[in-house]
């Protein structure tokens, strides 16, 4: 999944939808939207766009280095890192999804 985070440009989107090549610097594309929605499944507990509430008991994810986040979530998934909930949630995501979500949060402002 390629990330193109820029403004929505609907005519370009229409063209994209019928299979033409992407226009540069134009649209937030469908892939970026899907990635935002996937990452938003973390927001209930870690904050919108990964920005934790003040005094949070869990880490904010915005700006977290991708390699670190991937390592930690995979450790939750394998059971190597103990947890109350995250070991159960991490098992619901594929390694590819974990890597995509980590890349998304690494690119977010803290």
């Amino acid at each position, binding site marked *: 999944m390629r990330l193109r985070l820029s*403004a*929505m*440009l*609907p*005519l370009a*989107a*229409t063209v*994209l*939808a*019928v*299979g033409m090549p992407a226009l540069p610097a134009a*649209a*937030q*594309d*469908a892939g970026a*939207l*899907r990635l*935002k*929605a*996937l990452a*938003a*499944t973390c*927001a*209930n*507990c*870690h*904050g*919108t*766009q990964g920005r*934790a*509430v003040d005094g*949070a*008991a*869990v880490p904010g994810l915005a700006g977290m280095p991708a390699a670190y986040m991937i390592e930690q979530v995979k450790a939750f998934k394998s059971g190597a890192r103990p947890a*109350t*909930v995250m070991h*159960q*949630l991490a*098992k*619901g*995501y594929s390694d590819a*999804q974990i890597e995509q979500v980590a890349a998304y949060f690494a690119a977010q402002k803290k």
Partner: protein
Amino acid sequence: MMHRRHLLQGSGAFGLLALAGCANIGSGPPSKARVLVVGGGYGGATAAKYVRLFSDQKIDVTLVEPNDAFVSCPVSNLVLGGSKTIADITTPYTALAKNHGVRVIKDTVASIDPVKKVAVLASGPTIAYDKLILSPGIDLMWDSIAGSRAANSEGRVLQAWKAGPETVALRRQLEAMPDGGVYAITIPEAPYRCPPGPYERACQVASYFKAAKPRSKVLILDANQDVTSKGPLFKKVWAEQYKGIVEYRGQHKATAVDAKTGTIKFEIQDDVKADVLNVLPTMRAGQIAVQTGLANANARWCNVNYLNFESTAAKDIHVLGDSIQIAPGMPKSGHMANSHAKVVAAAIVAELAGWEVNPAPMLTNTCYSFTDARNVIHVASVHEYVAAEKTFKTVAGSGGVSAGPTEQEGAYAWNWARTIWADTLI
């Protein structure tokens, strides 16, 4: 590529409208796409915010909600236990407008015309929409228990299942009850809003009794065969922490109440008398969904296409939260409604932009239950859309429950509440 064909199958003539609307995105009203959200709970408020976020603020969003502020159902049992106040669990709607540009209208939708694609407000005005997001929560079917409607409207028998004034009133009834009294809660057959909620409530009331009125009793009268959520965990807490206070009785389907004598009648079992009666009647989709003809599952819940939560009864109306006919393993919870909302928001932004809707959406759920003022247990799950079966299923191997109540989870539970309120409303 199948994008266009898929889109047109999914939304028919709307494709043309959407393109017309989108062609002008960025050039301002009046030709912007218009999304109307009805109901500002965990589902609707989240959907309103995330349509704005996911569209980079390009899509107009109006939210119609009758209340001034959001009162959380999750953690509202702590108000009954006495460790939190109603103010602690209340968040105003103001930030949705200020931070995200959602137009918030304090009103109720009186009717919806799915053909003309307009909603009529109780105060009179009509609002046209390109996409309607309906998140009306639950309707309590008082007629399922004889005498309960009148007893509730007189304030004698409370539900407190829609958090707010009744939550405060029920706490007052508990405070007024003499030591040695009995609090009874009746639970309807599943599915109902918040599967573990009644059992958490029993813990909270028992926690209060144990400290303040130790000769009092909590009676759980459950229409279901057995505890429907976190059963072994709750039963252990009742047996150990609330021994002699909490009594659980399964297969007790309430059929009638008499508020004057404090009597509950059941389909089969003997009558029960109590000092404080907390009656949860059978539930169904919110009234506006029912009257719009969307409750096409057993005349109670709304069938949706789980890929975008569009009603199977009306095009361009997306239903989410507690009102829907649930997929296997999907609870009616605030967290789940917030999760639905993000899938709906992404699908609507994609449809309005002329993109293929995400073929593989994901949902999560985490439900925390306070067993006293500080200790908590949870159930968690992850759900993926399974295209072959056109439904969500829990991801194999994911999810689970706590080993037992801990203060650490108590801290996480309160953190969860503060964070999801912000994610939904701020």
